[in-house]
């Protein structure tokens, strides 16, 4: 008697689960799966918009050939985007882990500092950045406060010279000084990642730190032996998030958009989008494979 009733509750839960998921399932089918399939079909054909809809003509791989071999911008933009991603993601991960550790410590005005550090989550957006980059007024104020843009360059330059004289590899020096120059971009891209790391840091049990302190571990050791392994699954999550985020707003995305809606070459645009998607999927796959081996899972 009791057993059948229990079974029926489980069944009821399953049915309710289907009910709760039904909006998502409808959306997935009609607004995701079918468009995805359509986009694959379009990428193999030429699409012409007519007053009553559109017509398709099968072209084979012609669109892919055009995108990869003939279009002067696509290859270059794609390579740029990947390079930019390779440069940015490690910096974002490093910065956000560091900041999260900082914000996790107890100090006066912590709430205020956190509020400011999460501000980029609110403000970081394509359009504001685009307007800000080409902005005459803010450049004027910047150069006036820093005593001329030349001086700003000089500081970086001095640092660069110092490090090269100290025998640091040229590539590393360029990388570091370049990242200092783009500090605002790095910070504004790290909001969500800081959040994720912070939540992870707070889930580490304090007893681990107490035990290590009893054994005489320094703060530095505690970070590398406790904090780092415990947040390592989140490093994977954050790397994946950063990769997706870095690809969501770049020149390739703009190019795909323009090809469709300024040149009305929908087939070519779909082909570009598929090349783009496959590349991202490959990168994510490789990254996940490489890192998941090193990740430590507590339970």
């Amino acid at each position: 008697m009791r057993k059948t009733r229990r079974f029926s509750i489980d069944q009821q839960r399953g049915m309710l689960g289907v009910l709760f998921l039904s909006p998502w399932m409808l959306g997935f089918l009609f607004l995701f799966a079918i468009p995805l399939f359509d986009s694959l079909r379009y990428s193999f054909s030429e699409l012409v918009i007519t007053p009553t809809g559109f017509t398709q003509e099968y072209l084979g791989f012609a669109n892919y050939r055009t995108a990869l071999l003939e279009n002067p911008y696509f290859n270059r933009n794609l390579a740029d985007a990947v390079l930019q991603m390779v440069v940015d993601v490690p910096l974002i991960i490093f910065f956000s882990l560091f900041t999260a550790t900082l914000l996790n410590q107890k100090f006066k005005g912590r709430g205020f500092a956190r509020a400011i550090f999460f501000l980029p989550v609110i403000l970081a957006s394509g359009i504001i950045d685009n307007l800000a980059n080409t902005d005459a007024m803010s450049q004027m104020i910047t150069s006036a406060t820093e005593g001329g843009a030349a001086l700003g360059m000089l500081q970086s330059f001095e640092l660069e010279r110092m490090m090269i004289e100290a025998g640091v590899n040229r590539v590393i020096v360029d990388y570091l000084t370049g990242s200092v120059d783009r500090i605002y971009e790095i910070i504004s891209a790290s909001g969500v990642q800081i959040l994720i790391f912070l939540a992870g840091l707070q889930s580490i049990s304090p007893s681990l730190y107490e035990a290590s302190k009893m054994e005489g571990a320094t703060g530095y050791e505690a970070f590398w032996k406790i904090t780092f392994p415990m947040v390592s699954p989140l490093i994977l999550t954050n790397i994946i998030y950063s990769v997706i985020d870095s690809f969501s707003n770049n020149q390739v995305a703009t190019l795909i958009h323009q090809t469709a809606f300024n040149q009305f070459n929908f087939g070519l645009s779909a082909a570009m989008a598929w090349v783009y998607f496959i590349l991202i999927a490959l990168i994510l796959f490789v990254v996940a494979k490489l890192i998941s081996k090193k990740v430590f899972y507590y339970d």
Partner: protein
Amino acid sequence: MLSLERWKHISWVFFRSVLIIGISYVIIYPILVKLSTALKHRSDIYKPTVIWVPENWSLENFQIVIEIMNYWTTLANSVMLSGGTMLLQTASCALAGYAFAKLKFKGINILFALVIFTILVPPQTIMVPSYLNYKNFDVFGIAGFLTGSQGLKLIDTFWPFFISSITAMGLKNGLYIYIFTQFFRGLPKELEEAALVDGASVFKTFIRIMLPNAIPAIITVMLFSFVWQWNDTFFTTLYLSNSNVMATELANLPGNAEAYIGEAGKIDWFYRSMLTNTGVLLAILPLIIMYLFVQRHFVESVERSGLVG
């Protein structure tokens, strides 16, 4: 020995304070620049002594930009769009997240893998079919059957956003489902069982017990969905080329400001930039005001928001 420890501590506190203040400055700096620019009068632009503090305080820039951007209509439209999508997305994603966490049925893990898949596919990939979809919107050909037309034209209305929100397929909705799933997974089973023993149905348990406990996750998702919809240019330029919302108005602002300044061929670039800065400030002002109110809950909720797997 003790004093060495003390010194170490003091120098660390000093180092940390410098870092935090420095980074905070970098984050706030652009807002300060915009504020200072917006409050200046046009005549201050070429005065070499005026950098941060305006000599002639003026709200003229605001008046002009409010007029150019059609600000109040735009604001109302944007609030309606972002608020509507926020409510619909939070509801649909909370339902889906709860199902994934607590209402398991056969094959649900495959569906969850598909949620992750939707996060990975860039929106550009399904951009063209989605656009054509909403251009002649017709599920199962119902509209065509009834009226003989080619379906409804939903471009330049808010419907594409609302339809995708109600089906949890809007902007970054995979991430929201993930957040909700992780959060509901973290809630103890006993909570649910106690309610069941007391005779509440599964649905009632969800509404009365689980949702009030999920407020941190709800606040996080609501803030994200409102803000990201507000700032989004990809979907708004795709579906709403002619409507007044903040993102499109901001994208058109430089051009419109030039038209306002007039005098073709000799446009004052600094003046134009002054107007664009004021426009950006006006566009993000509602977000900042909202953030000031929600910020405390948001920052606290981070600790329990279930972002961690």
